[in-house]
């Protein structure tokens, strides 16, 4: 892998290698908790916490752990951090924790985290691993918030519980339901592909 600067390391997670729209990782949670912005914020924080700390720990122990058992040990590390996040959320924000149902524990099997641990943190030093984790979770949170914003606005006329659109706007209930999530994510991916094609075309003709 070519050596990248810290900035490139961070920003690749936001756009070029965005875990949700480009790598299609962690879709379950993005679709499931994006029906309101507040859920998205909580989920984003939980994933960021787990991703950053597991990247830190995985990269610290990467030289000690034998190659054959590395996946198993990564999973145990991730599961421990997820348990911490889940318990903290259940203790301080019981309502939010209830609204998110099984999706916080499910961060364990979120492919973003194991994917980054395996592909990046297990091969790199601590500092780049943390930057990479921050970038990846940044990209994840960005997509999650965008989805939450659009779905809450169109489905409920509100953003973070405050009414934005007036009474004239007939809420699209379907946006709050599962089909709305699928279609919205499909459109977001299509739009980001479209922008990418445009950028490439512009680069071709100087």
């Amino acid at each position, binding site marked *: 892998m070519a050596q990248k600067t810290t900035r490139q390391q961070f920003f690749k997670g936001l756009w070029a290698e965005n875990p949700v729209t480009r790598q*299609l990782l962690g879709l379950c949670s993005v679709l499931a908790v994006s029906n309101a912005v507040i859920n998205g914020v909580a989920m984003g924080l939980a994933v960021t916490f787990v991703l950053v700390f597991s990247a830190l720990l995985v990269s610290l122990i990467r030289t000690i752990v034998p190659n054959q058992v590395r996946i198993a040990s990564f999973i145990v590390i991730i599961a421990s951090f997820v348990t911490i996040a889940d318990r903290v959320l259940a203790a301080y924000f019981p309502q939010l924790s209830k609204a998110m149902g099984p999706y916080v*524990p499910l961060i*364990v099997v979120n492919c973003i985290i194991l994917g980054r641990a395996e592909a990046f943190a297990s091969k790199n030093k601590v500092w780049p691993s943390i930057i990479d984790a921050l970038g990846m979770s940044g990209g994840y949170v960005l997509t999650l918030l965008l989805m939450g914003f659009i779905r809450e606005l169109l489905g409920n006329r509100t953003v973070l519980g405050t009414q934005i659109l007036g009474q004239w706007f007939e809420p699209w209930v379907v946006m709050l339901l599962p089909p709305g999530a699928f279609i919205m994510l499909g*459109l977001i991916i*299509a739009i980001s592909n479209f922008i990418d094609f445009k950028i490439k075309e512009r680069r071709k003709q100087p």
Partner: protein
Amino acid sequence: MNLLIIFISAVLINNFVFYYFLGLCPYLGVSRKIGPSISMGMAVTFVLSLTAVSSWMINHWILIPYGLDYLQIVSFILVIASLVQLVEMFIRKVSPPLYQAMGIYLPLITTNCVIMGLALLAALKNYNFLETVVFGVSAGIGFTLAIVLMAAIREQLELADVPRPLRGAAIALITAGIISLAFMGFSGIIK
């Protein structure tokens, strides 16, 4: 009666893919052709049933009696990972053709949220043993139904002229959304 309700609800109404959004990675990844998607569905159904049994036993015989509920996440994931490994070895020894058909999908299943999701949901809903087993089997059938439907549509989509930015994942997700919309029609079956 209760079991029948669990069955219908897990297959049609609260389908794991369309309602809980679980198992989307293999759902989008392996749904290009009907053949492999059937194998994937079989493999998932098989592991789901086994997981339902073993996670229930662990939860009710070990974790709850000793007040270790907070270890649920760690112990479920370890059980699932070792279970998948065991099943893989067993099938390879016993039936090579079956291994050919679903072998490559088995390791993928470990990190499949369907399996973990089933274990957690069954624990959350406080199902008894029989209910958990029915829940597991019907969740698997629901997943198979969803993935085969999707593969059938995607085979047709190959021939269609899809706009370039929509190709691949985007159109697949929108298709899933439309199927999900159709599945919502079932929600009136059970009150």
